[in-house]
């Protein structure tokens, strides 16, 4: 038995060196590099780069299942995007697939349609089965948020080429989707979503809703370069509501706190106008 001791320790040493130390997972540096590069690429919506990175991670020593899961998602969405106009048909044929998969397809296709232009987006929307147009929030946060964003972008683009009356329902739907991302989406998508929601709501003359979004942007994104613009737009919303005192305060903040910003001249003009209107 004693003679076996060094061999036992040797084997234990080998196992220990290749598997775990004190319960902590050990992976090759190549795996970490590839996996985290993939995550960053995903975050930045560079899906080709993400797919490549996750493939590298799978071929390296590490937690292959985790990388494979991401890779599968990315590849699937990339495939869907490449399908182009055929995707609507495919969507019909996979109506039994889990909703997350369908939504991935929809999101990516909408994204592509978005880049192809409003007419194509409208074509796609017409082809989508009605049940797929519902986007429940039972998906992983980022995926759902991206689905909503793509959808909202497409709707917003489509509405741009329509007459105001026709566009109203689309704008309203897009604004509601942006609003959902703004409230529930991941932090990195919130600012853009809130901003777009506010813009669309202002367009729809829902000044109260737009105002809530602008006030939210000011309090939650204090260091965004658009901060002065947000104060200006807050002022405009108050102005439309004929709340002249609050409007003036917002315009004064935009001019007084950011006098070197590009919007200072505009704020300057609005202050005079507001004072005149409000009889101040």
């Amino acid at each position, binding site marked *: 038995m004693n003679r076996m001791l060094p061999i036992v320790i040797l084997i234990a040493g080998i196992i220990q060196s*290749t598997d775990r130390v004190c319960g902590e997972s050990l992976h090759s540096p190549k795996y970490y590099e590839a996996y985290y590069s993939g995550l*960053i690429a995903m975050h930045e919506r560079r899906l080709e780069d993400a797919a490549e990175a996750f493939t590298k991670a799978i071929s390296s020593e590490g937690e292959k299942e985790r990388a494979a899961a991401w890779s599968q998602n990315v590849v699937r969405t990339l495939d869907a995007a490449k399908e182009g106009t055929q995707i609507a048909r495919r969507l019909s044929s996979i109506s039994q697939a889990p909703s997350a998969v369908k939504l991935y397809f929809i999101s990516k296709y909408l994204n592509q349609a978005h880049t192809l232009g409003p007419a194509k987006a409208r074509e796609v929307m017409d082809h989508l089965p009605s049940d797929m147009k519902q986007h429940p929030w039972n998906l992983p946060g980022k995926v759902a948020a991206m689905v909503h964003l793509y959808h909202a972008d497409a709707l917003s683009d489509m509405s741009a080429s329509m007459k105001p009356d026709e566009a109203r329902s689309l704008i309203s739907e897009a604004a509601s989707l942006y609003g959902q991302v703004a409230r529930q989406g991941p932090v990195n998508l919130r600012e853009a979503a809130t901003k777009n929601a506010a813009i669309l709501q202002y367009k729809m003359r829902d000044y109260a809703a737009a105002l809530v979004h602008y006030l939210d942007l000011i309090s939650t994104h204090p260091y965004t370069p658009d901060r002065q613009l947000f104060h200006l737009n807050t002022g405009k919303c108050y102005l439309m509501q004929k709340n002249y005192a609050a409007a003036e305060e917002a315009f004064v903040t935009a001019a007084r706190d950011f006098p070197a910003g590009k919007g200072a001249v505009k704020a300057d003009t609005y202050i005079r106008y507001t004072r005149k209107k409000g009889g101040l």
Partner: protein
Amino acid sequence: MIYCLCDFHYTVRHHRSASSRFISQLRSSFVTASLSFILIAPLGAELISLEEMTGRWKGRAKAAASKRKWTEAAELLRKVELANEKDVESKHLHAFVLYQAKQYSAAAQKYHEVLLQDKNSFAAAYHLGRCLYEMKFHALATTAFERAATLKLKEKELWNPHVDGKPLNAVDEATAAADCARARCLLDWSEALGKLRRVKFPEEVKRHRSEADRILESLSMKQLPDSLGGRVAYYAALSAQQKGKQGDARKQFRLLVDSMPEHPLAPTASFAEARSWNEEDPLKALSLYRAFMGRFKESAIVADALIQTGVIYGRRKEFENAAKTYTECLERFPEHARIVQVHYQIGLSYLSAAKEKGNIKLYEMAAEKLIEFTKRDNGNPPFLGPALYHAGEAFLGSGQKESARSAFTKGIQRWPDSHWAKKSKEKLNSGVFEKPDE
């Protein structure tokens, strides 16, 4: 491995007693195990923990930052943050890297995150102020600097010489640096407010100026290191200039340049002194600009001095000198922020000189320079419309009617409704040109 096994057999054969056998076996077991790591490790892939990997990323990020490779460093630090959200040190470094890469908004956000995790971080508050200052968010920057100074003062109150190794004056210097930055911010803020055309904020301007003066005065009483003392002197001079006390400002600028010629703000002070004479005495300004360019040859502000010199020559109708100065600026500082204007002014100055002297060679030179200008930025520079019109004028002056017609026509085709197109049409219809055959 072979060595270990030999060692093991050797041990078994020569040590007979039970206890000594056990000890020697244990010894050889450790030797074997440790050698197995050495011998086997190279055969398989290197395996490490996430913590070790983040440590490596941080090390590489620091190395990249020290070589000013900001993009590479930022990429590595993003990975660190994804792997460990609570790592304040990497967040701080990331913010610094973003600041250096001039991504001020992202850097400010990062410093804000640091402050959320470590609300007493002087460095984060101070650098947040710097980011906001660069973004020209004067109100927010002032607040950040104030917070930084307060944090340092609080630290001073809690400072214990027996526990903290830092000398007390280091704490004072940090507070002074934050105060000095706040004073600069207040001065810039009041200046920007003063430039607003319609709505004025006299109360705010007055308050910011007096607050800046109060800070600078209290700092000037303190024993400060030269770097900080120089900054205080420079901002005090700026403050005097803002209040219209040009004499005092010039004296203070001169004092700074003479007493601390190596200070980073000495070239700026020397330039500011020269510039203060621009309107009052252009000749004196010219001589001061020349002195500045002789003394601070390597400074980046030399480009601005050359531009100012060109402007003064232009005002004095010394157009050829102006053109030469602008040409020097273009050759020496092709990347300067205002280089497009400078390039345009070369041709324009030659054209003005030609018009004044009626010299054909100068017209030719003007045409050449203006056409050269129209080809920059892939043939689409700003001021292209006026540049084509003036090129047409220059060609006309030098007698090259076809080239003139071509320049005018090009301008009209490109911007048919512009002011310059209208002027070009007037030239084309002025009778100078023969009408093309029907």
